[in-house]
């Protein structure tokens, strides 16, 4: 029984931490973010199992996690208010070829990262970008100016332009 509560607590705690950190941490693999993602399971694994390495405990923990994820997805789909509470809203980073500093600062996204995302979308100049949006999943979507092309850039920023 305790395992169920522990999984729920850890799920809520990690969700709250990631929600606090912001969208960029969701899909970043910059060194410090990679370290964070590697360490989190280390911290919680023992708290979850409590030296109980039985298959029963593992099944209870896994099904609890799957159930939470399923119920959360159902509630997010069904109720817009819950969806907005659980997920971050998109942040506009570039509008009609112009960087929007408030959004960039809030999300800690550098101009280099936007340019890198543009390059991955096959766009050379910022003037050719209608919208650059940091989506709730942490990826930057680039919408080309004057056209319908939309590029969802995988959030592996920092591997291109920074070199």
């Amino acid at each position, binding site marked *: *029984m305790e395992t*169920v509560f522990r999984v729920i607590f850890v799920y809520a705690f990690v969700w709250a931490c990631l929600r606090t950190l912001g969208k960029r941490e969701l899909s970043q693999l910059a060194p410090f973010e990679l370290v964070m993602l590697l360490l989190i399971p280390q911290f919680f694994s023992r708290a979850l199992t409590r030296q*109980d390495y*039985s298959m*029963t405990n593992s099944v209870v923990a896994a099904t609890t996690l799957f159930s939470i994820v399923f119920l959360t997805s159902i509630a997010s789909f069904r109720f817009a208010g819950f969806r907005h509470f659980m997920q971050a809203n998109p942040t506009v980073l570039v509008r009609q*070829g112009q960087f929007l500093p408030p959004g960039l600062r809030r999300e800690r996204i550098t101009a280099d990262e936007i340019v890198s995302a543009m390059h991955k979308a096959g766009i050379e100049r910022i*003037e050719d970008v209608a919208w650059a949006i940091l989506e709730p999943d942490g990826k930057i979507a680039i919408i080309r100016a*004057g056209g319908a092309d939309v590029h969802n850039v995988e959030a592996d920023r920092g591997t291109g332009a920074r070199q």
Partner: protein
Amino acid sequence: MASPNPSPPRAPSIEPKIELTRKQRIGIPILLAVPILALFGLFGETRGQAHTTSGSIDVEVSYPARFRYRQVQSLHVSVRNLSTTVADTMRVSFDTAYISRFSSVRFDPAAKSAYTVDLTDVKPSESRLVSVELWGQDYGSHRGTVVARHGTDSAIVHLSTFVFP
């Protein structure tokens, strides 16, 4: 070149009606059932109590009814001398078939021979406690008995322990 729209394109509103596939309709209730049953203690540790009296012996046993693989639980046997005389030796024997299903078995007081503990000089109305520490090595259902003897009297208590995998 630049779009005249003041805000990025938004998603249309679609009625949020939940639809599940046939596999999901079967699998999801099963998925949800496990933690719900766990909350009701189905997969947790429970203890059983058993009590019996025979002639001059009163035996009360508290044993693990359910526990998990590689977890430690204790079995307590309380033996009371109901006679009016001092019992030189009261012998408490544990079923080999039962005890052998566990590992790291430790008796307190220590067993003199295989799974048998002798309690000496038990005064009238005095209770003595025998504790056994069990480590769940084999999963499944384990059944056995605890027998307390004094002279010609013997009290038998049946035990049943399920070890979750």
